[in-house]
């Protein structure tokens, strides 16, 4: 497999994962806007922070009204992480690695890009927003479905997963980090109602609300939520799960010869850092520091993968 192809395919799946994550964040915000308007500005602020586009937003806008934020996140060119741009990048990388994808995966990606960008380039009305996001996620699900069912089990597929989980790890960590203060002691006591909304927002933006409620008998609390999103190895968007997948796919790419693999070894050290946080640890002043370190190690891991597998000359 060409290093260049690994590069394109790795980034294609990072961007697809990112597009899905951003669309879920918008959807969460939009739901809260419809159901609990009181604290919505704070929510949008957190969401913009999560995608790293807060500053870009204030360059262009004064107030945080929901529709402006949504349009900004969907298609505003002043926002480098808008859905339209992310999809463009995903599709461009797919085009570069066209030869390593099955026809099904390629055509699903191409039509996702053609149809979504057409839709986004038109005027967007409030009533369309849910539909647009729903259809986008459906189209991405189709790509992933074809990926799982039509691709050979070889290094090409492993790079697809590697990109997906590096991006996912980053996304989950950021969502938690932006709201790390929620996990500090005593906040539960201060304002239950607002916190409930925020807990829900976190879980929904990771498609984890239902799963969490099943595992925790409908009880929202900081300890259980952080256990679930950080350490649960059955939760497909938790940090632990994402990192397990990263390690597994590096191992597969390297044919189990990982002793001297820089990326695998860094992955292991991230794992021990991740697991150093004990379960049920409730007085968590250190959460921000902990997540911050994980995020930067994960970025480093991305760079090391690019070097180890000859992405560039």
């Amino acid at each position, binding site marked *: *497999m*060409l*290093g*260049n*192809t*690994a590069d394109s395919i790795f980034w294609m799946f990072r961007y697809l994962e990112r597009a899905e994550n951003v669309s879920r964040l918008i959807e969460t915000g939009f739901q809260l806007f419809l159901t609990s308007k009181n604290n919505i500005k704070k929510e949008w602020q957190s969401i913009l922070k999560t995608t790293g586009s807060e500053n870009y937003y204030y360059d262009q806008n004064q107030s945080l009204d929901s529709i402006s934020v949504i349009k900004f996140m969907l298609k505003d060119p002043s926002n480098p992480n808008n859905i339209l741009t992310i999809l463009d990048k995903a599709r*461009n990388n797919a*085009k*570069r690695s*066209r*030869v390593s994808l099955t*026809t099904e995966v*390629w*055509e699903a990606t*191409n*039509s996702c890009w*053609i149809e979504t960008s057409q839709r986004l380039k038109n005027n967007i009305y409030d009533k369309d927003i849910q539909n647009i996001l729903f259809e986008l996620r459906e189209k991405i699900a189709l790509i992933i479905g074809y990926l799982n069912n039509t691709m050979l089990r070889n*290094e090409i597929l492993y790079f697809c997963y590697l990109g997906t989980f590096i991006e996912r790890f980053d996304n989950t960590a950021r969502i938690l980090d932006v709201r790390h203060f929620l996990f500090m002691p005593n906040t539960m006591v201060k304002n239950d109602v607002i916190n409930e909304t925020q807990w829900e927002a976190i879980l929904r933006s990771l498609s984890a609300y239902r799963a969490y409620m099943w595992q925790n008998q409908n009880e929202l609390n900081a300890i259980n939520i952080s256990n679930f999103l950080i350490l649960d190895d059955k939760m497909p968007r938790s940090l632990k799960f994402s990192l397990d997948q990263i390690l597994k796919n590096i191992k597969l*790419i390297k044919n189990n010869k990982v002793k001297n693999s820089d990326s695998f070894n860094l992955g292991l050290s991230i794992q021990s850092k991740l697991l150093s946080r004990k379960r049920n640890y409730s007085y968590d002043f250190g959460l921000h520091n902990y997540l911050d370190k994980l995020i930067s190690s994960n970025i480093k891991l991305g760079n090391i993968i690019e070097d180890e*597998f*000859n992405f560039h*000359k």
Partner: protein
Amino acid sequence: MNAEIRNFQYDESFNPLKDYVCKGYDEAINDKSQIRITYKKFLKWFNNQNYSELSKKDLDANRLFKITGITFNVYGDKDDTEKLIPFDMVPRIISSLEWEKVEKGVSQRIRAINSFLNDIYHNQEIIKAKILPLELIYKNPAYLFQMVGFRPPNNIYNHISGIDLIKTKASEFYVLEDNVRVPSGISYMMKNRDIMINLFPELFAELPIRNSKLYPRNLSKFLKKSSPNSNIKSPVVAVLTPGVNNSAYFEHSYLADQMGVELVEGIDLSIRKGHLSMRTIEGWKKIDVLYRRIDDEYLDPLWFKEDSLLGVPGLMDVYRKGNITIANAPGTGIADDKAIYSYVPEMIKFYLGEQPILNNVQTFRCSHKTELKYVIENIDKLVVKEVHGSGGYGMLIGPFSSKKEIENFKRKILANPKKYIAQPTLALSTCPVFSKTGLVPRHVDLRPFALLSKDEVYVTPGGLTRVALKKGSLVVNSSQGGGTKDTWVIDK
């Protein structure tokens, strides 16, 4: 019968050929307006279709093309860089009997061209025999002095050729051009077939249409056979593309995909231990056969264009040491030069001792004084082309040009006569094309693709039919409003 209900029975009164009026030779109907035998079954079926359903299929076809991503880029067009070539869903049908002649003729032609290339880079017997003037070679930029005296692996130069043909009457084919540099369009031929099977499976179940989808398998076989060293058991083949922004990128990726080989760019390549190698996730891997889709001058900056980033420095040294096959061989372009073209019938006689099967179009070389005089005097009846032009640019079609255009072109020719050749305007055949009001006749040409190895020739059954979609137009190039259609060779 109730008049309202009659309206829904579209087909009874609807005759798709009612407006089908053609002047010259038409492939579907004869001069007595009777349907030719090759088109009978198809048109009978067509006549039974609901026309509004067919119009929907037309839209489906376009959507399918868009999703497959088979697009081309128009250089200098900023708005919408990826365009679709218009697709016409009425097939062009050729009988197997007629096809036999084309197949033999194409095979003969590409073998003669390969012999010519072997000769012209070595003993130059054809010049010694005074058939071809020396200056036509030495003063030609497509003639690579770097290739003189060098034997490419297996003595094959033009592994892949695309021969442009037109039909003027029954079983009468003329060659317009031999494309032996980097002929393109094969992916359209294959995708056209995919889309037709998708839209009209019943026709493929019913009619004995020859399979045109075996090309990639054959291409892969021929490329492997051309390996520089017969000891290599499974030679590594790669397709070299100028990159994702090239107008034919989708074709490059399509062919690599279909053959199951890597698609590489200059940045993926380097010379390691005397071999061309590609950068993989596990380090450098040797390539044995390079199917290049870039022009000669970009192959190696050490030998040709110094500032080219598309090729690989040192590639030509590897080639000259016999460590790689480049398909087509550098320097092959001399054979598809428009001035050399007029000598191909002579080459067939000289190298193969055979009579040419396909006709050549009479060609006037403006470099000759007498011929130049004839061209200037008869320019309104002629097609004038640049010797090195392509894509339908820089040409004049006399009968369709205004006086002013003709005068301007005359001046251009007289300023630099060597740059031009002229040919009589030929009556390209017409074929039915789908339109909202019914079928209409439009001019077509045909590009069959052919593969050559040391012991075998393969010609695609059919090829790419290009069609001038504008009424009366003779220009079939996609860059100027041409479209494509599926080509059927039907066994009896």
